[in-house]
């Protein structure tokens, strides 16, 4: 190892400039690779995190709407719906107190649950009913 492998940046401006340059380069590399930081251990990108948070919110919205719609009583007897209700509507604050890694796992689960729910609702006996709704179609377009 070379003797002088460490240096201490003494000029804050240069440190800022170096950070900016490297951040710029990393963003470009992500963009060029399709924005998919699938490498294990690499931190989740901001845009991906935002997407997951939006998925969770949209899932909650969808569950509430189903609950408050004419289909509500029927939905509440369905075991899967009860599970989702329990997980996302009855404990809304739990997610906010989770550690970052845990929260990511939770949000990725929410995204998967939303996708499953949209598929089931869109293709089941009531598919036609749901697909007539613009907001449902918006969610389908976004997540399926």
């Amino acid at each position, binding site marked *: 190892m*070379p003797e*002088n492998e460490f*240096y201490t940046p003494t000029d804050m*401006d240069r440190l*800022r*400039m*170096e950070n*900016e340059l490297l951040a*710029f*380069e990393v963003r470009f590399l992500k963009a060029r690779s399709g924005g998919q930081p699938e490498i294990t251990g690499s931190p989740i990108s901001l845009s991906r995190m935002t997407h997951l948070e939006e998925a969770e919110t949209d899932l909650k919205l969808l569950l509430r709407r189903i609950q408050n719609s004419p289909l509500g009583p029927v939905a509440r007897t369905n075991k899967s719906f009860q599970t989702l209700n329990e997980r996302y509507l009855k404990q809304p604050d739990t997610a906010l107190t989770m550690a970052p890694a845990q929260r990511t796992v939770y949000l990725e689960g929410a995204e998967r649950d939303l996708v499953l729910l949209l598929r089931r609702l869109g293709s089941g006996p009531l598919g036609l009913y749901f697909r007539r709704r613009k907001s449902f179609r918006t969610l389908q377009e976004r997540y399926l």
Partner: protein
Amino acid sequence: MERTPTDTPEHPVFYAGRFSEEISGAGLPGDHTVLSDWDVLPAQLASALEPASILVVLDIFSFPFESLTGDLVDVPLILLLPTGYDADFLVTVFGKAAFSRLGFFDRVAAADDDLWDEVRRRYDFAQGQLVEVEDGRPEYAAVEISAALEAESVLYAPSREGDYEANRYWSERGDALAGNAPHRAICSVNHGPKFNKAIHRVQEKVLNPQIAAARGIQAEEVPFDVLEIGAGVGRWAASFDPAKTRFTGVDISEGMVEAARKNFPQCRFDLLGEDSVLPYGDESFDLSFSVTVMHHNPTPTKRALISEMWRVTRPGGRLMFLEDFVSGGWFTTSTVYPMSVNEFVGLLFEATAGQVVLEHVESIRYQHDDFTRGGLLSVSKLGVAGTW
């Protein structure tokens, strides 16, 4: 590899090969080392070349060119063309091993003008890569080459009346060095030739693929119109295939423009006025680029130059900037206006009204410097062609 300053300053190293007795007795002036063919065995070559600012190969028949690998390639070469051989023979024997590895910072010493012309034509060498010698015999050529190197190494002291003013400084510097040491006008005048070749090689490694990418989008039979801002003696003209490229360079120094014209007579070099207005029509070039020019200029000049570069580039064409994006400028004799990449992007936006998209970004690390970082930024110009 981190280089720490050594007590022994760098100096020319002469490889005398079979002629070491004659060369040692020739009384070469100044600091130098003479190597025999024993000194360049692979195990010893690296340490033999450690103090070398330049390696003068006086006996190309016995030099192990293939051993010049890794950091050793940073040492600029001067190859003495032996007398009594024709170009065909020399090219056949040394073409692959020696001549084709010579870059802009390497040179050829020749007593025979015709021989030089022939080799130059075959390898597209610049005229400035010739070290003229009267007598091609190694012991006499060594003395002439040594004297020439001594003359080139005179320190350049810029006039320090008042503060650093970019246009004045660079035109004075270029004019002063154009006469006897135009190569030294490149990169850094305070460092030796090895430093400058090393910098160039680092930059070349990053720039060449992007030049190819810019070229790649164009049909082969269409000439590639290229413009360099701050072209100096034309070192980057050597990176383009003259058969497929129409290379134009501008510089603020008349001396540099003259030297560039001698180096590359097939290219066009023009003087840039202090108003930063490029003497070309709109949408004349497929690629406009600058290498370590912007960071020497204040913001208004940067903005004006970028705006002009955008104007003269064709829609779909590229603008490339290889500049320092992490630098100091903290010492009184600095010629740098430090700018971060974000600041530069902001300036790019102002100067082009945002009519560009990003094609490539790459940070550049220079071995000699912990703090300074360069970067290459390549953007495409948006818009519909205004002229056919």
